């Protein structure tokens, strides 16, 4: 069965009848809180699902950002977000906007922009160009965009002086994701340096996109192809090795979303899913096993931390907070806000941009009040959104670990 058949006919219906209409999901939904355009997860999810028979009954469904807070907070275990992502894919199947096809091509975007970084950055900062892009493609003129980098992560790996010390802890696979390969290159570098500092041999196989952006836009066939190709690439690095990533949302795609939303049951995915760890989750596991050196340098700083939706929805808590609390002097303040608004590619779209900004506003205020200069967040698009919304430097939590080990100032 392909992904669309799964979405159209199977759905997460096994969980549907567990809904007791308690409204917990309604109260947590960050989109319904700011716009009447979305009627809320319970209404478009477990309720509307009963009436769907090939036809969509509630088009406000398209305003769901797929943040996943509804599933995460449901006390009855109903897979509300998964139901909604599937129903949206079916609803859009016969009239998929060109914009939604393009916007999921994240690797392509990085490949095209990196060699022309100055030009690309100038174009992204250029109001008339962005206005044309908005009119023609449907990407909002003010939507946050990553700055193109002069060097890709792969380029850095090739040119750097590899560590000379012999690994003491064995090999790990590093999965950088599209953004970590082309835009958030510095985070990937620091992640690898921390792992090497801990004594691991870090293997970085050639790798493509996980397909998350295609999945969230309802392009299940291409997303399934992407994620399986990636599984092959990651598996090629060695059997049974732990796969570490600093891309919180791509990790979620591998761990559960491809399986739960698109019905991918391939053994290759299952194998990768159980071996994948978010880097902060991995460090916390080491700490709990008594294997994480905690001779951290003191960092006197108060820093806001926002746990991204796609990391929260992995059901592992907030490992970054636990790890960063080990650093003396560092005070980490959890945002306590549901979502930054961007939700992958949602907040880029011209019709959703204002909604996404409204969703993010309480978080932006929290960041400004806590530390207007510097904040932490585990996923790339969320960082771009928070940077744009606050003007603060927003980095991955691994930056603090890197610094606390004395690997950077």
């Amino acid at each position, binding site marked *: 069965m392909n992904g669309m058949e799964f979405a159209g006919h199977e759905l997460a219906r096994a969980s549907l009848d567990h809904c007791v209409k308690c409204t917990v999901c*309604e109260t947590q939904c960050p989109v319904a809180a700011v716009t009447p355009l979305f009627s809320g997860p319970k209404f478009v999810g477990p309720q509307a699902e009963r009436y769907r028979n090939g036809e969509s009954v509630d088009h406000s469904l398209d305003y769901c950002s797929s943040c996943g807070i509804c599933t995460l907070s449901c006390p009855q275990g109903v897979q509300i977000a998964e139901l909604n992502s599937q129903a949206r894919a079916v609803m859009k199947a016969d009239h998929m906007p060109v914009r939604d096809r393009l916007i999921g091509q994240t690797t392509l975007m990085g490949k095209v922009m990196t060699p022309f970084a100055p030009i690309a950055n100038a174009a992204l900062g250029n109001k008339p160009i962005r206005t044309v892009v908005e009119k023609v493609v449907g990407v909002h003129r003010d939507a946050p965009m990553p700055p193109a980098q002069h060097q890709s992560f792969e380029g850095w790996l090739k040119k750097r002086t590899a560590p000379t010390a012999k690994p003491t802890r064995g090999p790990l696979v590093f999965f950088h994701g599209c953004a970590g390969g082309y835009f958030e290159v510095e985070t990937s570098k620091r992640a690898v340096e921390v792992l090497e500092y801990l004594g691991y041999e870090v293997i970085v196989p050639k790798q493509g996109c996980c397909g998350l952006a295609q999945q969230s836009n309802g392009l299940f066939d291409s997303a399934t192809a992407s994620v399986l190709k990636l599984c092959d690439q990651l598996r090629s690095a060695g059997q049974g090795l732990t796969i570490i990533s600093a891309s919180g949302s791509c990790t979620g795609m591998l761990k559960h979303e491809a399986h739960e939303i698109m019905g991918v049951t391939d053994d290759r995915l299952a194998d990768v*899913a159980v071996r994948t760890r978010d880097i902060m989750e991995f460090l916390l596991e080491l700490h709990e096993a008594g294997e994480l050196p905690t001779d951290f340098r003191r960092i006197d700083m108060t820093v806001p931390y926002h746990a991204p939706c796609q990391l929260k929805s992995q059901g592992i808590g907030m490992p970054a907070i636990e790890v960063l609390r080990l650093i003396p002097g560092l005070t980490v303040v*959890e945002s*306590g806000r549901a979502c930054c608004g961007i939700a992958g590619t949602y907040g880029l779209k011209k019709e959703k941009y204002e909604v996404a900004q409204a969703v993010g506003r309480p978080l932006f205020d929290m960041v400004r009040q806590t530390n207007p200069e510097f904040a932490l967040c585990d996923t790339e698009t969320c960082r771009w959104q928070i940077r744009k919304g606050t003007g603060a430097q927003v980095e991955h939590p691994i930056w603090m670990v890197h610094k606390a080990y004395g690997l950077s100032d």
Partner: protein
Amino acid sequence: MTRVVVIGAGIAGLTTCLRLAAAGAQVTLLTKGIGGLQLSQGTVDIFGYAPHRVGCPLEAVGDVARDKPDHPYAVIGAEAVRTGAEFLRDAVGPDLLTGDVGSNHQLPTAVGAVRPTCLAQPSMIAGECRDGARFTIVGLRQLKDFPAALIAGNLARTVLDGGGRMSARHVVVDFPARDGEADSSGLVYARAFDDEGFRGRFAELVASLVTDGEVVGLPAVLGLNDRSAWRDLADRIGHPVFEIPLPPPSVPGMRLNETLTAAVKAARVRVVLGSRVTGVDAEPGRVRAVSIAAAGGPRKFAADAFVLAAGGFESGGLVLDSYGRVSETIFGLPLAGLPEAPDELVVGEFWGAEQPLFAVGVRVDERMRPLGADATPVYANLHAAGGVLAGAQRWSEKSGEGIALGSAVRAADAIVEESE
């Protein structure tokens, strides 16, 4: 430092976490979803009916402890209930819970009944049902869960315990929370009432409809984040106002849940939301670890002590299958209160008699450790609190929060004591 895993994020789980963390334990909270506290009325019931209307809940707890050896209060005792209720009240602060643990308020419900409850939110207190009270119940045309005419009608025909009466009338105003919205949830209204301008316009309208000496009853939607919104509204109207809790989404329940959850996080409890506990690693007499079904595979949590606060039937902590078999879903604990035959679980008139089904649960010792058939603890380091405890008719006694708080205190204090 003692490591404790607490399972469940309702009032029992959250209170246990906070009390353990305050005593210096290293606490991890595992929860499938957001707990039931936010679905509650945002008040604390200790004992409401015995079966007469109770004025002094702790006295009733003492009576039950003496007369009903199978009731959870028999092992919890009135003192732990008092400690738990006061601990919660102090933890969330006077902006959220007020009252004397020794006496019940009598407050109107959303169908105009008079409900005994012990601690209530300050925004509800002006609704105290006493002889000579004069209420105007103000309904909102766009809020369907608040039938103002029914509430006022029922309050007006109620004869209070001492023989007193209240007068009550109703008005319904046309005041949408959002332009053009004909049917809004209480939550949408609560967010609107957080806005000062919205409150100002509403107060002006209501002020024109009430007469001297009337107390204004409103749906419990007077602000979600702004805890003084109701006070501001009362000042603007120039009359005392009170909130009447609605069916979920319950705004007072959300206020309580969010404040208590924030306190738990601030106390450095590690909160893992969204993963069900699916595995138990135990040796005879002792639990070593539990595992959760996180994305991608199970994750194990080892600890020195465990607290089962996953609730009863409403949350899936207890389940009843189609053969009439009841089971506890996480540890598979032995259950007490089961009748001889499965068809005796639900008896007679549903709303009349005590229902054996609702009293099914785990029986515990004074340290809240679940007991086996031989009356000894199943595991030396497993404790239980809240809705999973056997022996109570919480829905008719109105004893749910009292049992949760008392057992939370007993369980947490036992763990702390054992670690010393």
